[in-house]
């Protein structure tokens, strides 16, 4: 039986990739271990090795095809005694469906992946994103991934200020474990793009020391899970020195990297630190959702004289959003953004939590419920004024986040709203968070541990008494 070669997944979060090159031709003999093709993900170009022996009978996905979904048959391998004529069964349907998928996947897939970047002209029934008052009306918008937006922010700030440098594991020669620092070494050289050993506690402290001496380090943690090793330097050294020195000396430093659950990496690699760091006076905590916010807020963070925790998300890295084409696009830290205006209920979220809020909002519209969505963008200082103004209008509040439920960001918001706007509430505030369990590995359990759109919809129905 001819063997189908499938499009492989090359990272925990990869859903599709580009088939950039075939290194074997139809009719070539292949043994296990031979490199047969090159596949490009948004993070890297990887070689695909044959697992089985045989003859490459048929190439189903042509070189240069973009957006090939994981597990799509890309070629057929013939065993001894089989010929191209045998390809028949597996190849025919695969052939018919694979290119179709390859041709038109982008739009469909992304619609499902909650792409909220509502190009105002687009006819798609997506959430109409409210205009950000910090972006001048009429500004040209360019579709950009969160990954590119972060890289552009760092590059622009490094061009602007010679004291800004980036350090971390694999940031230079490897181009970033998640490719966020791609190209920075080539532009700025090894003095300013510094590969560190695997030594989080140490290099976090070195970064803080350099910041105390007046440099402006961007310290990349490969993920914030690893920053647990460094948390003493972040909290005891970076966050407190300004206060302990009576204002003489602070630490202008940005700690950034992916935070929260990625996909199928289990408990030690899947944790949201928004609530943890938001507990600490002396820190600012930023957690963007869109690429525009990622760019504008990272630039602001690098310029900010305080230590900043900048929480990114691996799943969002590859998502595209409209980013304003401006020479110097800087957003204010500490200001929430009204993602969509509405009158019946306020949904507050941040970071990847916004994906649930946005999807739920679309469903709620079908039920005749007009939700307002607030993207916090900054967790500390928290823009309570924007939340409370919205609650005074809608009288109902649901908060959505992926972190653990106890002492969550949502808990704090619920508490503040109950103290400051109790009389405006027509229902108890509902907080939706990740479940109170370490993140499991199994796909079904992981799904259960995270919040879901249904929970958000149900919460909104509950507070609106539907």
């Amino acid at each position, binding site marked *: 039986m001819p063997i189908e070669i499938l499009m492989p997944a090359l990272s925990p979060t990869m859903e599709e990739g580009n088939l950039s090159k075939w290194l074997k031709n139809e009719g070539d003999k292949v043994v296990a271990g031979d490199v047969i093709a090159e596949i490009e993900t948004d993070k890297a170009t990887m070689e695909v090795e044959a697992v089985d022996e045989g003859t490459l009978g048929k190439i189903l996905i042509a070189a240069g095809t973009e957006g090939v979904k994981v597990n799509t048959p890309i070629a057929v391998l013939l065993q001894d005694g089989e010929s191209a004529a045998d390809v028949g069964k597996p190849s025919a349907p695969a052939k018919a469906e694979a290119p179709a998928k390859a041709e038109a996947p982008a739009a469909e897939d992304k619609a499902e992946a909650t792409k909220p970047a509502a190009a105002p002209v687009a006819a798609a029934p997506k959430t109409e994103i409210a205009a950000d008052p910090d972006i001048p009306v009429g500004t040209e918008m360019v579709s950009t991934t969160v990954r590119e937006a972060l890289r552009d922010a760092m590059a622009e700030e490094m061009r602007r200020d010679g004291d800004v440098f980036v350090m971390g594991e694999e940031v230079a020669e490897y181009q970033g474990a998640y490719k966020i620092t791609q190209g920075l070494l080539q532009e700025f050289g090894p003095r300013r793009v510094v590969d560190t050993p695997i030594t989080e506690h*140490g290099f976090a*402290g070195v*970064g803080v020391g*350099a910041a105390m*001496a007046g440099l402006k380090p961007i310290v990349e943690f490969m993920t914030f899970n690893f920053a647990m090793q460094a948390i003493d330097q972040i909290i005891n050294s970076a966050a407190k020195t300004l206060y302990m*020195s009576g204002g003489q000396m602070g630490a202008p430093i940005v700690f950034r990297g992916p935070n929260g659950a990625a996909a199928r990496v289990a408990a030690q690699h899947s944790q949201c630190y928004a609530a943890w760091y938001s507990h600490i006076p002396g820190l*600012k905590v930023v957690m963007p959702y869109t690429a525009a916010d990622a760019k504008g807020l990272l630039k602001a963070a690098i310029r900010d004289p305080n230590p900043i925790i900048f929480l990114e998300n691996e799943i969002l890295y590859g998502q595209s959003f409209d980013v304003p084409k401006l020479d110097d696009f800087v957003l204010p830290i500490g200001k929430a953004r009204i993602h969509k205006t509405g009158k019946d209920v306020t949904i507050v979220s941040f970071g990847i939590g916004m994906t649930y809020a946005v999807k739920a909002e679309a469903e709620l519209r079908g039920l005749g419920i007009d939700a307002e969505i607030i993207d916090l963008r900054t967790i500390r200082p928290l823009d309570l004024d924007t939340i409370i103004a919205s609650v005074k209008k809608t009288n109902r509040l649901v908060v959505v986040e992926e972190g653990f439920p106890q002492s969550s960001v949502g808990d704090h918001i619920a508490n503040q709203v109950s103290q400051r706007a109790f009389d405006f509430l027509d229902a108890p505030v509902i907080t939706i968070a990740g479940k109170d369990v370490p993140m499991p590995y199994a796909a079904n359990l992981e799904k259960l541990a995270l919040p879901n759109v249904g929970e958000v919809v149900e919460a909104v129905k509950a507070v609106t008494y539907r």
Partner: protein
Amino acid sequence: MATAAKKAPAKSRSDGKSGLSAPKPAEFTRDEELAAYRHMLLIRRFEEKAGQLYGMGFIGGFCHLYIGQEAVVTGMKMALIEGDQMITAYRDHGHMLAMELSPRGVMAELTGRRGGLSRGKGGSMHMFSKEKHFYGGHGIVGAQVSLGTGLAFANRYRDNNNVSLTYFGDGAANQGQVYESFNMASLWKLPVIYIIENNRYAMGTSVSRSSAETDFSHRGASFKIPGIQVDGMDVRAVKAAGDLAAEWCRAGNGPLILEMQTYRYRGHSMSDPAKYRSKEEVQKMRSEHDPIEQVKARLIEKKWATEDELKAIDKEVRDVVADAAEFAQNDAEPDPSELWTDIVL
């Protein structure tokens, strides 16, 4: 291998063993001896007064006195040039005085008053001076080692010829981040002098009970950082080692370790009765190795100063300390509004 070792210049060891040896104690001029005497005496008298004010309830919390170890900071300061930085842990009053921070400011910080260097918000363990290049004053054992390495990183980034003097104790020398820092400092050839003040006790645990390798000058061996053991009770020996180390760093050779063999006369902090060592041990160090008495003896012996002249210096120092104590007891407490300042800029 043998040929490779031969080819290597004497200074750049690659075997991790001691390639450098302790230099002979510096030959001090009369002025240098007198300056060392005055500086060490200021620290001694200041600390005695701090201990007294603690007993009277003017100083709260933790208070770690530097008495006995004065030669270390005094000798190292003599090896510095403008812009060199200093950073240490919480036994820091001596370091601050050596870096010429105001005695009034330090003492008023100890009493938690508004005229304190941190406006009363840092206390004994947390004081800083950007102007004098003193970077604290850190309360977490070992944290200052990574921070001091970061100061050296900034020096190298700016290519400014300055050196970071990063102090820590024999106790901190067992913290993991010390070795993470050693690795990066050596890898990137950072200009940092790691000064291990080995006063023999990590709080109440003696070096032999806490450390598998008790020769701290070898602690950089895995990172190709050379180290030297120095008589930390002799200010001239410290000065000579400081000169050598500073030159080593400024020449671009990377970090160096100086193990200062020293001794603290008092307990770990004010509340430590120091039952873990004998009175005789302390007395022996005081009578045979006291850093201040050593200088005094040389000054008298060389007839560089009379008893009366030294008494006059003693009185000047006492006056400075008395003035600082007076100020620190009478200065106002911080305004309540200070609670909410300096959190973020």
